[in-house]
């Protein structure tokens, strides 16, 4: 594609399975994360902590089922994500050096030139790798703590608990401190993910020039 789009043309940025998966992450990870913090600090009485644990378990089930189904039913998207997240070039390093121009935009209200990005930028690649392995770890360790606590030796239970706590807290902080604020800041992208999945083509060509040049195609009438 040559990136010369008309003003009102739209691109399907996130397909329905991807949006449903993302909704499941919101409905699964966020309640599990909030209640995980509550379970760590134990601010409530017995009934409150019990409720927090029940919400934590329901959130974890949603997360686990959603991830499993997405892996099984949408392997193409998983492979596409994997290829993009692990493909780092000099442009990514340059992008990271200037923080994608976000500090300049958000603090000094100035736009600077940044290297062209694909569907996800270098910060999202870094976040994606952390979320990929982090989620895998919290699901595996959570499954040990939920299904097999009386069966496994004490050492396994201890390390599963530590890994679940540290990785879970780390991910929750990254999501709440980075992903959510930046997602809301990039409002058209936010609307695309939580809405009909489409994005204005000119906006996409500005923010994802490599993606619009190489990875999209016109729909046949």
């Amino acid at each position, binding site marked *: *594609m040559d990136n010369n789009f008309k003003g009102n*043309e*739209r*691109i*399907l940025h996130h*397909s329905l399975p991807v949006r449903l998966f993302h909704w499941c992450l919101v409905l699964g990870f966020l309640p599990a994360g909030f209640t995980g913090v509550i379970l760590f600090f134990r601010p409530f009485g017995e009934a409150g902590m019990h409720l927090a644990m029940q919400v934590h378990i329901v959130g974890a089930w949603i997360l686990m089922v959603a991830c499993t189904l997405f892996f099984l039913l949408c*392997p*193409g*998207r998983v*492979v*596409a994500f994997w290829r993009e997240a692990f493909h780092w070039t000099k442009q990514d390093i340059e992008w990271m050096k200037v923080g994608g121009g976000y500090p300049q935009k958000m603090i000094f209200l100035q736009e600077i030139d940044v290297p062209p990005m694909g*569907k996800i930028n270098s910060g999202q690649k870094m976040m994606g790798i952390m979320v990929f392995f982090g989620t895998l770890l919290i699901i*595996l360790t959570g499954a*040990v703590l939920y299904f*097999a606590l009386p*069966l*496994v*030796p004490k050492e*396994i*239970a*201890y390390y599963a*608990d530590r890994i679940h706590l540290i990785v879970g807290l780390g991910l929750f902080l990254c999501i709440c401190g980075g992903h959510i604020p930046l997602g809301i800041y990039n409002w058209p992208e936010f609307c695309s993910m939580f809405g*009909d999945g*489409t994005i204005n*083509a000119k906006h996409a060509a500005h923010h994802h020039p490599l993606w*619009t040049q190489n*990875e*999209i*195609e*016109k*729909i046949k009438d």
Partner: protein
Amino acid sequence: MRYSYKEKEVKINRREFLGFAGVIAAVLWTGAYTVTDLIVDRTKYIKMRTAGLYQDDEKQAKRQSHHNQSLLNMYKKMNFQPLSPLAEELFHTHYVDRSVL
């Protein structure tokens, strides 16, 4: 149609498919093997410990604590009875829940 463009289909080549399947199989197999091995080991130690306790028990001439001559001597010397208030005070233990990590 609400949009004019979409992403090209992602094609997974045979090498990528085999790589993914291999990595997933290896991770699952290693995890399952490690956990199974640890549980088998733990069960083995519990069985060995149980056998050792039975073996110790079989060697004893008197196998019940209320027949233990040392204990009977102690009660006689200290001048109190099993299950007496003093025995309760000295020997009774309380349950502590250590299941919470």
